[in-house]
């Protein structure tokens, strides 16, 4: 740890942590629409621009759809690009999310995870980003404002890595993280600048046999975003999937490289196993609830209960192998979903975690808990109940209800 830099301790909420990391990343263009629903990320960035604290073009677009489109176009021109959104705003971007990943534009976006209407609700849950899980974006979820800050710095490296060239969204739970003040260690500007570096461009091969940077450049005219008929379209999509696979290697690399300078790492970058080595029962979750669960796990451990937590940090690409490895030894697992896949027989994280364990011999019994929709609080007592259910399940092997709802009027 001799390379760890001296760091300043700042009081920042999650939104400010995003903005601070963005400020340190030499972003060229920020295009954003601030209000579906509002987050202070872009307000803070606008303030930095107005005060000359960052050398960035800030485009206040007339909608999130245009925001993502302007981001994509700026990225295609060779710029480093950032934006932020949430909830309905992300849903409005839906079409452009696919175009952005399809054009291999390494845009970084922070999402203050919030519920989708109707009924209208601006509070925290994961409905917005879970609905975009097949949009070709890397998805990283965070537990606290510190992880938010650290992850945004890493996101530019992950997105712009020549083996990925994929857009990245960083999820931070609405209000719980976005609006809550926490102590955040920030690395010095020059260290951050060195870590993030400058944007590298993929080299493309032209029909004339030249190698040119993949961007809109009058010196090397290139057609980007063409029509691809059935004879070529499929290969484009296959390449995107390959890039996602590469991200499974790049994300841990960035996690380690960042740990060397900051002293902080988040598991292997993909998942974080908390007291799982000898755990008999475990919960799986992503986002800020991991913090609550860790507290409950610690309490249970003092009571002699072999409980643990698997925090999924990277949901796309889904680290199935890592998950299967750490959960294989447990006897009962509760997967926590903060969104509903309507009619889907359980939430998205449940589906994928259960699927990851299918080929494991003697895999654990698995149940699903849907929780916290529309900002509903999830208490340590409720988490304790879930672990209580798991103890019974580990003993009897009998699943009463596969999909359960936490703290709801039935």
């Amino acid at each position: 740890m001799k390379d760890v830099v001296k760091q300043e301790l700042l009081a920042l909420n999650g939104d400010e942590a995003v903005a601070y990391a963005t400020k340190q990343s030499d972003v060229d263009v920020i295009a954003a629409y601030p209000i579906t629903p509002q987050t202070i990320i872009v307000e803070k960035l606008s303030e930095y621009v107005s005060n000359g604290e960052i050398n960035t073009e800030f485009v206040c677009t007339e909608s999130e759809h245009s925001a993502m489109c302007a981001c994509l176009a700026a990225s295609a021109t060779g710029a480093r690009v950032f934006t932020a959104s949430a909830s309905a705003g992300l849903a409005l971007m839906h079409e452009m999310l696919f175009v952005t990943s399809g054009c291999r534009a390494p845009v970084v976006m922070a999402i203050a995870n919030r519920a989708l209407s109707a009924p209208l609700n601006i509070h925290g849950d994961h409905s917005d980003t879970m609905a975009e899980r097949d949009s070709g974006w890397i998805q990283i979820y965070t537990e606290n404002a510190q992880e938010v800050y650290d992850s945004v710095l890493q996101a530019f490296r992950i997105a712009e890595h020549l083996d990925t060239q994929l857009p990245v969204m960083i999820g931070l739970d609405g209000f719980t993280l976005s609006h809550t003040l926490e102590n955040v260690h920030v690395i010095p500007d020059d260290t951050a600048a060195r870590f993030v570096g400058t944007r590298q461009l993929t080299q493309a091969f032209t029909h004339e046999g030249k190698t040119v940077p993949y961007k809109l450049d009058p010196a090397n005219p290139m057609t980007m975003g063409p029509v691809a008929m059935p004879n070529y379209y499929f290969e484009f999509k296959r390449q995107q999937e390959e890039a996602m696979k590469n991200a499974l290697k790049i994300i841990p690399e960035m996690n380690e490289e960042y740990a060397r300078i900051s002293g902080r790492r988040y598991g292997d970058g993909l998942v974080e196993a908390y007291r799982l080595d000898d755990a008999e029962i475990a919960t799986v979750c992503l986002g800020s609830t991991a913090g609550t669960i860790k507290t409950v796990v610690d309490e249970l451990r003092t009571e002699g209960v072999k409980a643990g937590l698997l925090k999924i940090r990277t949901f796309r690409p889904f680290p199935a192998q890592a998950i299967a490895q750490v959960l294989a030894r447990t006897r009962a697992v509760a997967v926590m979903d903060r969104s509903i896949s309507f009619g889907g027989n359980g939430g998205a994280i449940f589906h994928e975690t259960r699927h990851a364990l299918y080929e494991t011999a003697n895999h654990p019994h698995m149940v699903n808990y849907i929780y916290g929709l529309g900002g509903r609080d999830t208490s340590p007592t409720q988490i304790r109940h879930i672990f209580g259910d798991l103890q019974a399940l580990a003993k009897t092997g009998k699943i009463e209800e596969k999909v359960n709802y936490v703290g709801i009027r039935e």
Partner: protein
Amino acid sequence: MAISEGKFTAKDIAEKPDLFLSGHRACAGCAPATVLRLIMKATRGPTIVTEATGCMEVASTIYPYTSWAVPWLHTAFETAGANASGIEVALKIMKKKGKIKDEQVDVIAFAGDGGTFDIGIQALSGAVERGHDFLYVLYDNEAYMNTGIQRSGGTPYGASTTTSQAGKVVPGKLEAKKPIADIMVAHEMPYVATASPHYWKDLIVKARKGIEVDGPAFLHVFAPCPRGWRTDPSKSIELSRLAVETCMFPLWEAVNGEYQLSIPSKLFALAPQKKKPIKEYLQTQGRFRHLFTKEHEKMLDEIQQQVDQRWQRLLKKCATTPPNATQ
């Protein structure tokens, strides 16, 4: 505006290498393809083109082929304005930071009538309000032609399309064409103009003005579509003249909001007797065939009235008042 029209003689234009190249898959007689080729003759130097989904985008960039000899970006249908915004700011900041060469790079956005009158108007309006420096070219073939001739906000009154079909009860489209260029003038943008490919020099000079003006410029170009209009493919340029001669599509510019008739249309202001009846224009097109039946012939008079009213309104807007004149 200080553009030397002398720069654009037929010889100059013929000698300038094409930037929109042959080999694209546009239909025979496609006026939009001609419009794009002519406008690319107006460029002043390094240029980036972005295009909304539409006929010209689909016809010119079927992977792995392209007709574009300039950098070109397509993202989606409703996004030409936002694309141009993103490209323009990226160029500006990267130049400022020394990440790219410090040279003037112009940005041109092309979109059809669907991508402009309808689904793209929000992104266009936003981009113009923010004052990005780019030229937006609307090639108006008056319906969604690429997808099978569905009506758009740019389809004229009475036209039969696949979603405004002339049938036993409904005589084609019942709504008027949206005055898109006037809507753009209302944005108080520095340069708006209309053009027609028959008047090729007028078109190229206007495109060049739009490129050179500091800030957003909007060019509304009339672009006949033989497939959609049910016309003879050899008549597209003739139709683009007839539209001006009937004052159905008058040519004008608005520089900083001041309307001015362009020379081809000025003729009909000075010599109204030369203005041709709209029937001459309508009768050449299959999409208006149903209007020439006993049942619907009164619509012909209505269309003539609409054309005349709009023309009179335009003449009023173009009437110049000396700056110090008392009312």
